[in-house]
């Protein structure tokens, strides 16, 4: 298994390099000039020129890319051209928030989507199926930020059950280190008050982010279960009087989730796009809003780093997906 992971990691490297090249070229074709922003609103043309020189923006593309790669090889992603702060530090600070949010959303999506998919499939072409299909498809179609604001109005304003925005109440200070993940850190520090507060803050954003994925997961699960129900072993299991509930929820489901698991891998890939809106509305201090900021300010260093990050996450999730599939299916485990 270690060999399998090592092999996959090595295979990923060329793709990541390709990703960097593509992104670098793309971003450098953008005429937006960070020097203008750095020089401020009262800049003189001479000042802009000087800043451009200072940041090496007047160098040939190849030189710039070479320098950048040399930095990346040392895990130095440079400084943001907009804020001057080291990109790696900013990302390290924000990534845990996004991962926590995404993971929570995925948990909700899978936790609800898989059962809904199973129930729909078990009632194929009957009312529960119809209803669940319409509801789950509605999840894909709902505009996330509209839903977000409605949830805010209901749960934060009207009912007052959950906080409106943010990751933590103003009075509380994150416990700090060692992982950077708020939930994990507060647990490690034994700060259950912070954990509880952070969880309360997590609910609305995670639910909002989960609806799209939930629908996708439900659909693929439904298709998978329908497919599995056609299999001979299901007939056999019925013929020998398998306990029905266990048959469906354990024996059939495990065979059906293969496609779903691959879909979850792909869902993770579109993390940034989905997180943008949700992070903006709930003021979640994550990667999504950081990316938007970088795009609006044409901050090449940040965009490159984010791209690379998404690439790495994508690759990691793919490897994890393969591992998950190997866990589910012994035949894959044996490399057949």
């Amino acid at each position, binding site marked *: 298994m270690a060999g399998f992971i090592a092999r996959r990691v090595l295979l990923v490297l060329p793709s990541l390099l390709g990703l960097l090249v593509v992104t670098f070229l793309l971003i450098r074709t953008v005429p937006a000039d960070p020097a203008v922003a750095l020089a401020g609103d009262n800049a003189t043309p001479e000042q802009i020129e000087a800043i451009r020189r200072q940041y090496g923006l007047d160098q040939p593309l190849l030189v710039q890319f070479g320098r950048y790669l040399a930095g990346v090889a040392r895990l130095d992603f440079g400084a943001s051209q907009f804020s001057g702060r080291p990109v790696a530090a900013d990302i390290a600070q924000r990534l845990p928030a996004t991962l926590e949010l995404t993971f929570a959303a995925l948990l909700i999506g899978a936790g609800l989507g898989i059962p809904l998919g199973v129930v729909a499939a078990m009632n194929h072409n009957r009312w529960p199926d119809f209803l669940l299909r319409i509801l789950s498809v509605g999840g894909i179609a709902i505009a996330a930020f509209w839903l977000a604001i409605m949830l805010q109005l209901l749960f934060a304003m009207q009912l007052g059950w959950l906080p409106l925005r943010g990751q933590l109440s103003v009075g509380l200070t994150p416990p700090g280190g060692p992982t950077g993940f708020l939930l994990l850190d507060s647990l490690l520090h034994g700060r259950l008050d912070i954990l509880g507060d952070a969880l309360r803050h997590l609910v609305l954003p995670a639910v909002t982010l989960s609806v799209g994925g939930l629908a996708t997961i439900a659909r693929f699960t439904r298709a998978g279960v329908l497919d599995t129900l056609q*299999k*001979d*072993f299901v*007939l*056999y*299991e*019925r*013929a*020998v*009087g*398998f*306990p*029905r509930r*266990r048959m469906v929820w354990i*024996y059939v489901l*495990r*065979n059906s989730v293969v496609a779903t698991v691959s879909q979850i891998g792909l869902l993770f890939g579109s993390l940034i796009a989905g997180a943008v809106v949700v992070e903006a509305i709930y003021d979640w201090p994550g990667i999504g809003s950081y990316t938007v900021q970088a795009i609006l300010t044409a901050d090449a260093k940040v965009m490159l780093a984010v791209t690379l990050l998404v690439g790495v996450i994508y690759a990691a999730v793919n490897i994890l997906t393969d591992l998950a599939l190997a866990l*589910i*299916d*012994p*035949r894959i485990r044996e490399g*057949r």
Partner: protein
Amino acid sequence: MTVPALAITGLRVGIRSDEGMARILDHIAFSIAPGCILGVVGESGCGKSTLIRTILGILPPAAEIVAGSILFEGEDLRAFSEAELNRAVRGSRIGFVPQDPYLALNPLFTIGAQLLEVMRWHAPGERRSHSTRLVELLRRVQLPDPEAALARYPHQFSGGQRQRLLIAAALACSPRLVIADEPTTALDVTTQQQILRLLRELVDELGIAMLFVTHDLGVVAELCDEVSVIYAGQTVESGPTAAMLDRPLHPYTRALLACHPDRSEGFTGIPGAVPSPLRAPPGCRFAPRCAGARPACTGRSPAPQWPEPGRSVDCILYEAKAAA
């Protein structure tokens, strides 16, 4: 006389389709005594699998039993609720050996997990004692290395081994009847021979009854004590194997035997095709293909006749003989 393990009379099963209710099984009748193997022979589409699903109570949603009785050790299975069937009949008092050992086992679970699950469900008790019993059974069905087998996955066994596993599973809860659905069609001849021999031994040893569904007359000849021939959802002839192979009564049985390469030098077939049960002809369903058909054959279904002790035949020819 002992109570038959299974006695089916006048069974009729209908299925709802766009064109209304169709009889996919129609006046099926046979019985099996304990310690006896009954071969149910029929060509594809004759309703063999519907018959099995009817007995086990796992018909598809669109199908239902319209008439007849299924007496299992004297109890009418039709009176059982779904929960009772699931708990006390399927997999416990009636064992099942499926057709295709390659597909019938869930590929993602170990043999032990799957088989013990069934055993625990039907016979609550110690996990340890279940697995001890299962290992014993696996040894009995001559599966190599039975202890290790429980921790292995289906794909790690050959077809023959998997069929042995499934036979062991069918016997796990000490059934009184085992239904075997063409259990050797997916196997090679040498393996088939081994399995058939094993089944015979087990039936003789345990005194259980077996319903052996097949299309292969050769297999029937080798294995079964009694035969019941089904055509297009109707029982056409039943009786002891040897007698039936020697002197088939029904024109269909005769034609079928004549097709067998061991019997005929040329290649004779039966003209026409098995009708779809959804569009079965009226009267005797074999009439359109029968060389000796008379106008009366299409008028009504023939009533069963007993021209010899232990043999029944559903053909108008014998009605005439009986009348005469």
